[in-house]
């Protein structure tokens, strides 16, 4: 229960209509089953939720929290458990009223946006100006500001437009003290064009190892790098996702590429990166697509004809989809020629899906706006990923097999839904700078058995990550962070020092930023525990050497 004095101060700061402590309304912020790896469905009910409309109002709220010993946590669209409060003394700062696109600078190719602008909105505005913006793999409902400042933010278009954290050109940040700090060129009043100045360049401090997930003040504006858009100002599309109809813009085509073997597929991805072609590129597995378009048929296939799926997965080993976009028919023809040459040399087949009417109409807009991927919810009700890190494509490819081993064991035990394959989501960044892979597993969060498998699966995959020298992005979980930090340059010790320096009253809800928790050792298989100790000793030793 929030103290009366504190609540009155919040009301005074931003108006009574913009503050609530009504339990049912607060619970609408507590229902967070997605990415809730604890197996719980509700997170803590916050003390209050506030709706500031400006940077100044955010400052007022932060100061009120400081004065009253309350924690604070900001959220934008609030999808996933990371958007919830950690305790009942936390004030959630819902940034929904800060939803303005402040500026789109066509000449210098950047946009300045507030937290509640979603990727779809920004892209729609960019297209009208011949520009494009990166949309995270989670989909166009996610906040570009959140991805850029507080999370990771990879996506299907990362091959051409990188990842959110690398597109930041300037930030306005309300620190946990309530002061405003502007990073990058806006810090010197020089405009929003460069993340490294003139002005303070504090991008690493702002993000830490994988973003502070709302646990380090409030980001109120961000400047994002924009890219060239060779398509028209709008793309007409009707229907929803699976029955959508819309034409692919001129000078664009997309291909499904499949290979004799998975190494061929990885090699092709490398070469595509080197050739600097492609607007969108993403690897998904055959069975997942079948599942999406035929959910009623899929369980029968798995139950009665698993071999068919196995055959399809083998026959189309490690396929990926690539969308090419040219400024002219000639440029598109060049890119297609390069693609065919690469695929041929890698023992593969590139099927031009854009020549197939239904596929073109179905997939065009869904690829360009990244709208099809959240349909992964359709069958299982819920999905989770191991949220792997960013490494070379080879490393990431190997990781899919590791994950498949764990995943299939849990599927066999009834802890996950059988989706018929590995289902890695694998993309290439910035023409081969690095790659990213997440293995998707489907479950139904209404099923207790499924929920109970999440924690042990998370522990298993963390163990595997340590063994393979991977740093999972899921280091935002306190347990994973505690296990991983000592093995990776004690990154969390640095984060804690930074947090303490900027947040002297400890006002931020730091559960997903710096907090650490021990795993429930009583529930862990002793053999796995032994393995953990062995790995910790091995890698700590290496680090010391």
């Amino acid at each position, binding site marked *: 229960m929030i103290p009366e004095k504190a609540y009155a101060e919040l009301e005074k700061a931003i108006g009574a209509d913009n503050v609530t402590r009504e339990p049912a309304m607060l619970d609408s912020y507590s229902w967070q089953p997605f990415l809730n790896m604890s197996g719980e469905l509700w997170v803590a009910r916050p003390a209050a939720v506030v709706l500031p409309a400006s940077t100044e109002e955010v400052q007022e709220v932060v100061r009120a929290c400081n004065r009253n010993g309350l924690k604070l946590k900001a959220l934008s669209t609030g999808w996933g458990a990371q958007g919830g409060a950690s305790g009942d003394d936390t004030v959630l700062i819902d940034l929904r009223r800060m939803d303005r696109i402040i500026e789109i600078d066509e000449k210098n190719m950047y946009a300045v946006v507030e937290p509640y602008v979603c990727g779809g909105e920004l892209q729609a505005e960019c297209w009208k100006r011949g520009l494009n913006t990166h949309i995270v793999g989670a989909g166009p409902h996610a906040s570009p500001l959140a991805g850029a400042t507080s999370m990771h933010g990879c996506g299907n278009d990362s091959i051409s437009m990188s990842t959110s954290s690398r597109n930041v050109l300037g930030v306005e940040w309300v620190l946990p003290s309530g002061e405003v700090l502007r990073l990058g060129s806006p810090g010197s009043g020089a405009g929003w064009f460069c993340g490294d100045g003139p002005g303070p360049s504090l991008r690493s401090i702002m993000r830490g190892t994988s973003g502070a997930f709302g646990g380090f003040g409030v980001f109120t504006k961000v400047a994002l790098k924009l890219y060239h858009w060779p398509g028209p100002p709008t793309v007409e599309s009707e229907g929803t996702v699976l029955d959508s109809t819309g034409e692919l813009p001129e000078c664009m085509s997309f291909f499904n590429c499949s290979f004799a073997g998975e190494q061929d597929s990885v090699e092709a991805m490398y070469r595509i990166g080197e050739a600097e072609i492609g607007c969108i590129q993403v690897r998904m597995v055959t069975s997942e697509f079948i599942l999406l378009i035929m959910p009623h048929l899929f369980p029968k296939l798995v139950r009665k004809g698993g071999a068919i799926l196995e055959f399809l997965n083998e026959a189309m080993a490690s396929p990926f989809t690539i969308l090419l976009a040219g400024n002219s028919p000639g440029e598109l023809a060049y890119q297609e020629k390069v693609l065919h040459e690469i695929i041929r040399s890698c023992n593969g087949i590139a099927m031009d899906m854009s020549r197939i009417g239904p596929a073109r109409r179905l997939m065009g807009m869904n690829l360009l706006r990244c709208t099809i991927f959240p349909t992964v919810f359709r*069958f299982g009700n819920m999905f989770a990923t191991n949220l792997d890190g960013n490494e070379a494509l080879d490393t990431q490819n190997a990781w899919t097999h590791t994950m498949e081993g764990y995943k299939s064991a849990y599927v066999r035990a009834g802890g996950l839904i059988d989706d018929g394959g590995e289902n890695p989501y694998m993309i290439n960044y910035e023409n081969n700078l690095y790659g990213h892979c997440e293995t998707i597993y489907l479950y139904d969060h209404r099923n207790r058995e499924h929920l109970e498998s999440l924690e042990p699966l998370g522990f298993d995959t963390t163990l595997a990550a340590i063994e393979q020298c991977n740093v999972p992005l899921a280091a935002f979980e306190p347990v994973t962070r505690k296990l991983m930090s000592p093995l990776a340059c004690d990154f969390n010790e640095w984060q804690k020092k930074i947090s303490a320096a900027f947040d002297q009253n400890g006002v931020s809800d730091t559960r997903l930023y710096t907090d650490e928790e021990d795993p429930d050792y009583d529930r862990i298989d002793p053999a796995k525990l032994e393995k953990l100790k062995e790995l910790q000793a091995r890698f700590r030793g290496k680090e010391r050497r």
Partner: protein
Amino acid sequence: MMSCVRCSSCKWIPFNQMKSARFAKNCPSIARHGFHSYSGSGRVNMGLSLLEGRSELTEKVSEVIYSCQMCGACDTHCKVYREVIDINDVLLELRAKCVEDGELLLEHMAVIDALKRENNMLGEPKAARGEWARGLGLKDVNTETVEVMFHAGCRFSYDRDLWPGVRGSVRLLQAAGFEVGTAGAEESCCGGRAYELGYRGEARNFFEDMLARVRSSGAKMLVTACADGYAAFKYLYPLEGVDLPVEVFHVTQVLERAVSGGRLRPGRLPCKVTYHDPCHLGRMGEPFLGRWEGDKRLRLRSMSRTGKNGVYQPPRSVLGSIPGLELVEMERIKQYAWCCGAGGGVIDAFPEYAAWTAAERLEEAACTGAEALVTSCPWCERAFLDAARETGSPMAVRDLNELLLEACGESEGGDP
């Protein structure tokens, strides 16, 4: 309710349809009030909290539940990604729960009291219900057998500003050769709005009344000019097990056939208009598809109300048949349309919020360059007329039937 993953899709129009940031949002409730609990997802989450006993239904929660036009936009976008959630049904249940627990809004209680007393949503005298039709030469379905039973609906029956539209509907039907009758003063509310307010017992009485009248009329077709009525007949009645023994049409569907069949021949009417899809004729007017038994994850797409089977093309075909008329579309159309603000009892309980919602739509209409906003629902028309007056918007608001009548060179006969 547990299936909601809180992705927030329910707050925007489907992303593939997004053409600008200005008109990207789909839910008036959260756009106006801000807290997540005012969205489709938030109401579902609150419902689960109530169901699990984590929180209680209070006056404030009831206010949140009723600050919703029941426009169905949240459900349409949710269905893009999910088969398992029917947000609209959850919203209906929440309202029924409010009534069951006595957490009522005074404004709605007054409306329901008047409905029980006068058989209409406006509290007007029931004896005056048929006055709009004076001089039209309509048959009396209470005493005569008719081919077409015409249901005017409460708003059209009593709102004199809108009489040219409803009288125009009838004139056009007659001009197209239909033999039309009404129940006159005996016509009563369809009960749809009462059902949406959660007053199911009262609504059920009106459903039964309508069923009896339709049966006795001998009509083959039930035609209504009211989008709310249309949605009630097509969805709520069968949902409650009330099967009307007639084909149900919105008047625009019949007029589309009349125009395409050459029974109506509109003349030249140079103007530039945009069309507003009424929610209850569009996504909320989709027919009841039956109850899906078993795991909803496996529900066939054809059994899912996705919004795409609403009445969208008939009004556009009618407008397209008028020579010289240019139809320019807004960004949010068909199943993605922004609501007029009047629905779900909002116009009664929260008139300012209703006016704000309508004003948003008028702005969107103005962006098309149209000189008039055309619609085919009396509730929408009233909401837009009021908002235009309050905001000083120069946008003319026209009823589609009135426009077609003018193009056909017919007259609705003037004020009765």
